[in-house]
């Protein structure tokens, strides 16, 4: 494949480990609750309650519940600049930083690289301002909350970063790519510690309508719990979710010197672009396969060393079929029975936070040596010819796993995560 290169020399000198992890989603408001939710295999999708969605073509979602903003590290001024999604991001970040024993500084190079959402405005606000032709400055104080980079700016201050905050938006691949770029920045000796991940919510009127009008959303409004069915024969679209997942990546020796907990190691990252149409995958799936091959090459491992692939698996007709074919293209010769599933049936599609959440699930899977369950599979689509993981969470020895993310616009990201011994 075109971008498949030999393992470069620099990575022999620097290794990148995960020393902190935090999560907020429909499954729970911290990492432990989220992991227990994954193990339970119970879908938390329900009727949207954040707003009255009863007239919308898509009225279900995976909603964060009973959320309390843990704003101790954020000033009042900063809090006023945070959207709901950014507050999810803050909580997940604080949990990750706490686990990693940060933010006390040792003078190392610190950075923030995040995946940011679309920054879509609040319905009430938009219908009362720009729609009405209102441009008074007083009406626009809250508009800055929409800037996708606000969370990164606040986090930069929280961790005392000495590098500029970077926010990436490549739609559903945003936070996977952020993790990949954070991994590279440590590998390339540009940083020692990076706070990375993503936060998003699509459970807002304007966002919901976009996916619905594209025909990408499930119409199973009367059966929310089983509406998201990745790789199932009768799948009919995605179900959105909200939340955040954040992690601290750190250079290995730096982590060892300060006795930081080590959750896992990031060893490979592949990123390709297969732009075709803004909202459709290229039918040949070559770009997705190339991203996986690039990540394997970067990790200097063969496909047979991967125990589990956490697929992007949105539950849309096209994505699952094309991604399954791409997985088969990469794995069929050396490891045709590699176990695959998509945990979006448990978390919903968290869009800009999806890649980070799924990477976080992979990290926990490696740490606990438990394979996440395949949920909402009633009959596998024969056109998705991958070996799906069991329907129950299953103990299994795993050294390497892969997490795939595929974004509108053609961005394909793959991460290889290794168990840390």
């Amino acid at each position, binding site marked *: 494949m075109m971008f498949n290169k030999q393992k470069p020399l620099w990575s022999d000198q620097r290794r990148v480990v995960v020393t902190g992890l935090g999560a907020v989603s429909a499954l729970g408001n911290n990492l432990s609750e989220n992991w227990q939710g994954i193990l339970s295999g119970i879908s938390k999708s329900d009727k949207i309650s954040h707003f009255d969605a009863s*007239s919308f073509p898509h009225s279900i979602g995976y909603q964060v519940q009973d959320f309390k903003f843990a704003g101790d590290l954020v000033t009042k001024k900063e809090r006023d600049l945070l959207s709901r999604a950014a507050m999810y991001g803050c909580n997940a970040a604080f949990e990750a930083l706490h686990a990693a024993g940060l933010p006390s500084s040792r003078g190392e190079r610190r950075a923030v690289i995040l995946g940011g959402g679309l920054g879509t405005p609040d319905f009430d606000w938009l219908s009362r301002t720009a729609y009405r032709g209102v441009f008074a400055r007083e009406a626009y104080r809250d508009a800055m909350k929409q800037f996708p980079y606000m969370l990164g700016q606040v986090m930069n201050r929280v*961790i005392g970063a000495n590098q500029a905050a970077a926010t990436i938006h490549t739609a559903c691949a945003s936070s996977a790519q952020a993790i990949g770029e954070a991994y590279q920045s440590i590998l390339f000796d540009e940083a020692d510690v990076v706070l990375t991940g993503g936060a998003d919510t699509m459970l807002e009127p304007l966002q919901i309508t976009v996916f619905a009008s594209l025909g990408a959303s499930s119409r199973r409004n009367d059966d929310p719990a089983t509406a998201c069915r990745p790789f199932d024969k009768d799948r009919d679209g995605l179900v959105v979710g909200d939340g955040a997942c954040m992690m601290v990546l750190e250079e290995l020796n730096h982590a060892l010197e300060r006795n930081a907990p080590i959750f896992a190691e990031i060893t490979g990252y592949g990123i390709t*672009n297969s732009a075709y149409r803004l909202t459709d995958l290229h039918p040949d799936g070559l770009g997705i396969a190339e991203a996986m091959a690039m990540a394997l090459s970067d990790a200097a491992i063969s496909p047979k060393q991967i125990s589990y692939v956490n697929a992007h698996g949105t539950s849309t007709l096209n994505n699952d079929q094309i991604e399954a074919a791409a997985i088969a293209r990469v794995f069929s010769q050396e490891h045709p029975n590699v176990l695959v599933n998509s945990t979006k049936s448990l978390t919903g599609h968290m869009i800009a936070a999806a890649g980070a959440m799924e990477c976080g699930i992979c990290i926990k899977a490696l740490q606990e040596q438990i394979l996440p369950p395949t949920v909402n599979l009633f009959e596998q689509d024969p056109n998705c010819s991958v070996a799906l993981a069991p329907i129950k969470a299953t103990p299994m020895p795993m050294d390497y796993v892969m997490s795939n993310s595929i974004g509108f616009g053609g*961005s394909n990201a793959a991460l290889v995560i290794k168990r840390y011994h």
Partner: protein
Amino acid sequence: MRNNISINAVGMNCNTGVGSAAFFNFIDTTSHDNASPSYSLEYFQPLSYLSEKKLLKSLSQSGAIALVALENLRSDLGSRYNGISNWRRGFFVSSPSPSPLDRANYFKAMKQSEQDDGEVSLRKFGAVFTQATPPITGLLALPNAVQCFGSRLVGANGPNVTYTSGEIGGHLALMRAAANINHGRIDLAFVGGYSFATDRANTSTLAAHNLLNEHHPRIVPYSSQSQDDGTICGDGAVFMTLASGDTSPSAEQPPLANYLGGITCSMGANSDAGPEFLITALQKLLKKVDVDPEEIGLIFLNASGVQKIDQVEKAALETVFQEVETKPATAATSLVWGNLMEAGGLGEIMLSQWLYKRNAATVPGKLQVAGFFEPTIDRRKKYVLINRCSVFGDCTSIIVEPHATNDFS
């Protein structure tokens, strides 16, 4: 370690027109008046510049402005890139945060959802949206739309990034592209940024946070007068190509410049920080690329007009260049283009080469900044420093070596 990256072609679209020639013509007029056309491209008509005209249905005005710059780059590439069809290509772009006015696609459905009291009914909106609005319009403001269509236009299917990081995004894209070339992941990088921040929703947002200069038509940088405080945004887009200096795509045509290196820094936890963080970063950058302050001939200033940031930048540069006998010349494009936000910091590379190869050694009046170092460039000093700073105190700096056909030694 110094990079060995060549910058080989450029495309641009800003208030002075499409292409660098239009900009140079404007700058090179004899008038020393700083007057420039409006910073806005609200009424720019992209249709005649695009080879794939149907893309306009899927793009916001900002996206269309960007693709016109990319088309302009393609025409500049022309003869330089024959025979490199098998080069692995990446695409790295800095994109603006969508403006509330980019959401005008929702307004038709809102109109149909008004109740008798004039309020927009959420229930009605949910029911009529899919009928009132063509599906794709919901994604007109997708920040990576330009990456999607642009990468397709230039066949870049390798590593790609869309940064939504505000004023420093263009430099972040450039640095990421250079890292990917340095580490052998690609052979050719398309790097760009685009901005469309002059609309009333954006300016209202800046005003609400006291970041907008509401008293003047143009930026007044490095002033201490309260009525001069604040920035004025501009619209525009710049794209360029980067390749390894060892594998320059054209033996006949020299590159515009070589990229030596860049650095990012932040005020971090201390939002009341002085210039120390920027001083440290600039000194690290100079050391990293093995350039003495004495060798810097020209500095393109950030000069956004936000006084707090301007003061930090000025104090930092005065410290870093304190020991230099003949100070570098200073210039600012923000006087002409406005604050190009996500597109800023890239067009200056092309401008560096133009300033280094023209006969006059003095920075043209339209780019001169009052109250800073002198405007005369000692072009024996080979290197140019380009600064960007965000209103939140994140800064980036890069150093380039413009390729000058004249021998000034």
